[in-house]
């Protein structure tokens, strides 16, 4: 694993390499080199199995972080390739030519985060939420509570209770709350 | 006997057979429930379902054939009853219905008649699941008909008649006179084909509710479904009565009729409880193996 990291990091200028476990490594790579590196890992390093592709919204940094998680079935190791892309201009090179299932992930990311993958098949079609016309719903600046209040009909009189205190009041109404608490702590 | 008296007896018999068929299907579900450790439906559930279906307010139509599908099905069921003797033997001449020389041919035709009518009606419904169900049903029916017809032809050669009354009468006078013992090979072919004719598991792919398409009746609702249910009840009894007359010596009283049809019906139920459902290509191949070979042997025995 170590030799692999050394070999790859000089080649692709990896940053923030984190070895999570013996068989799991995460590393950032530049946006332009990412697909190149995924191809290299697949063709030359034996990471032939594509596990998943996901996205994290780092709204504070103005970045989306894409993750390509690759698996090497022979050495039983995983390599997570992270890419930071600009949040305002969220376009990424498509990787659907490497593994066919990637275009489904990309379609999902297009719908949930608004990240565009030009050239990816059916990327503009609805994936899970049909007929969505608002801001992509997994972006963190999308206020889901406000949207739900505006779109759906809230029922009056909805209350939330803390389950522990509520049950205590219901089950042992005469017992003072403090005494009960002490008993719990013992 | 006047034609009016004959009609009266026939309608009375039809009424008895309809109710007996519904009671039989309720009993079947009750027994399956008890085997599973459940209480199961109330025994009068089929009648309630019938009333409820008649009370459905919305009735949609897809055209004339859609109306006629259930009617054809009912015609097939009633036709099977009309041309089959309910009871045979001395003193039961008024229960012979309208059976005549050569009625077996007509009854075999009526078996298919309701199915074809349903195919036309359900086809007009436009539901793709119906079309799948019809395709499966007709394919399976063709496979069932072959051993069944061969077995029946063997009986026809054996008894030198195509009349169901004569065949049933020839078996009177003791269990050993039944076709089951006088022509066991043909009986085996017929009774194996009977499993398919009843359409219970393992041969119920066509209309099992838990298959993705419920089959031809997918689009039928309300009164249409009520007609289908009542004709289904009649058909179950009449299929059992057909095999009773062919193989098990017919019936000389209604008590005997009820016991024998019940046992024949439950023979198919018990097989169904034991064996899981066949896919359509498996069931067709199954009928083309053992039952068909038995049917051919039964024919060959009496050909020389």
């Amino acid at each position, binding site marked *: 694993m170590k030799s692999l990291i050394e070999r790859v990091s000089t080649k692709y200028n990896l940053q923030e390499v984190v070895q999570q476990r013996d068989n799991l490594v995460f590393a950032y790579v530049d946006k332009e080199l990412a697909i190149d590196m995924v191809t290299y890992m697949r063709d030359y390093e034996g990471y032939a199995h594509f596990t998943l592709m996901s996205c994290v919204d780092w709204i504070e940094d103005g970045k989306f972080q894409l993750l390509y998680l690759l698996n090497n079935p022979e050495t039983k190791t995983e390599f997570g390739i992270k890419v930071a892309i600009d949040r305002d201009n969220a376009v990424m090179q498509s990787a659907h030519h490497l593994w066919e299932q990637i275009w489904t992930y990309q379609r999902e990311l297009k719908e949930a985060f608004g990240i*565009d993958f030009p050239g990816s098949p059916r990327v503009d079609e609805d994936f899970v939420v049909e*007929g969505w*016309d608002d801001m992509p719903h997994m972006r963190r600046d999308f206020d889901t509570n406000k949207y739900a209040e505006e*779109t759906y009909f809230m029922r009056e009189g*909805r209350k939330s209770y803390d389950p522990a205190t509520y049950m205590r009041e219901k089950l042992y109404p005469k017992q003072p709350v403090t005494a009960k608490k002490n008993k719990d702590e013992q | 006997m006047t034609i009016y008296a004959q009609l009266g007896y026939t309608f009375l018999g039809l009424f008895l057979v309809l109710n007996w068929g519904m009671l039989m299907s309720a009993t079947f579900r009750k027994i399956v429930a008890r085997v*599973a450790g459940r209480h199961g439906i109330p025994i009068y559930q089929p009648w*309630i379902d019938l009333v*409820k279906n008649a009370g459905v307010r919305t009735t949609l139509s897809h055209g004339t054939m859609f109306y006629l599908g259930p009617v054809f099905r009912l015609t097939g069921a009633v036709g099977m009853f009309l041309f089959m003797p309910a009871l045979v033997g001395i003193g039961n001449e008024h229960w012979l219905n309208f059976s005549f020389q050569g009625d077996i041919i007509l009854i075999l035709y009526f078996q298919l008649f309701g199915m074809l009518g349903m195919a036309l009606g359900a086809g007009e419904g436009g539901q793709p699941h119906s079309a799948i169900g019809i395709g499966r049903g007709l394919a399976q029916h063709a496979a069932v008909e072959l051993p069944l017809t061969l077995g029946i032809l063997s009986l026809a050669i054996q008894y030198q008649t195509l009349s169901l009354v004569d065949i049933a009468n020839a078996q009177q006078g003791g269990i050993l006179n039944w076709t089951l013992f006088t022509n066991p090979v043909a009986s085996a072919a017929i009774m194996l084909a009977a499993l398919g004719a009843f359409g219970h598991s393992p041969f119920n792919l066509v209309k099992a509710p838990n298959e993705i398409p*419920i089959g031809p009746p997918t689009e*039928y609702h309300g009164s249409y479904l009520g007609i289908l249910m009542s004709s289904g009840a009649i058909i179950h009894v009449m299929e059992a009565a057909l095999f009773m007359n062919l193989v098990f010596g017919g019936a000389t009283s209604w008590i005997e009729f009820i016991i024998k049809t019940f046992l024949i019906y439950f023979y198919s139920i018990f097989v169904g409880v034991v064996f899981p459902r066949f896919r359509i290509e498996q069931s067709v191949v199954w009928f083309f193996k053992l039952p068909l070979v038995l049917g051919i042997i039964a024919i060959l025995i009496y050909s020389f």
Partner: protein
Amino acid sequence: MNELLKKAEANASTKEEKSFVRPEDEEREVIAPDGSIIKVNPIYDYFSGEKPSVEKPNKGVVEKFLNWARAESIWVLGFGTGCGSIEIPPLMTPRFDAFRFGVQMRPTPRQSNAFIISGYLSVKTLKRVIRSYEQMPSPKYVIALGSCTINGGMYYDSYSTINRLDKYMPVDVYIAGCMPRPEALLAGFVKLKEIIKSGKGEGANLYAENFDEYKANQKKVIKDWNMPDYNW
């Protein structure tokens, strides 16, 4: 590479407003074999565009008898909409045995008269639920299972699930809980029977009377409306 990206962006900015009607269902003109031009609108050519009408119940003893039969023979549409549908299979097992109450499952909406909305209802499923509900013949009853159908439950602030089912279709019985046990569902069936027997289970007629209101609410959340207004 950059040129490609720019092209894609240009495409994205000039993209027209999304149409949700499938291309084969769009209103258009076609040329017949004899050369004449025919206007087609498949959604209304293939399906009936008629609105539902109120179907008045019979009077007196007849309706009472029919209502008794309807109450004793509840055919439930086998359509699980949310997590609550996992509570329905145990209903048919020896422990709960809903068959005792005349409850049976039917695989097609045409033959069923009760619809269990089991748990949360996403907008995507709501569209299918409406289609299935409208295909059921009247009289029909809706059982809303779980808190999510009452006020949204734990998904009250979700962008994709509705909060109040009764804004979209008439509901006869609510069963509260997250999740309600099968016993609660059985109690709901008994309650539904009481409602039907007392002649109050007229949800289908309520739907027909307030059709425009229900349709407006439905169209507010289902933005890709590409079916006829009433699915016969």
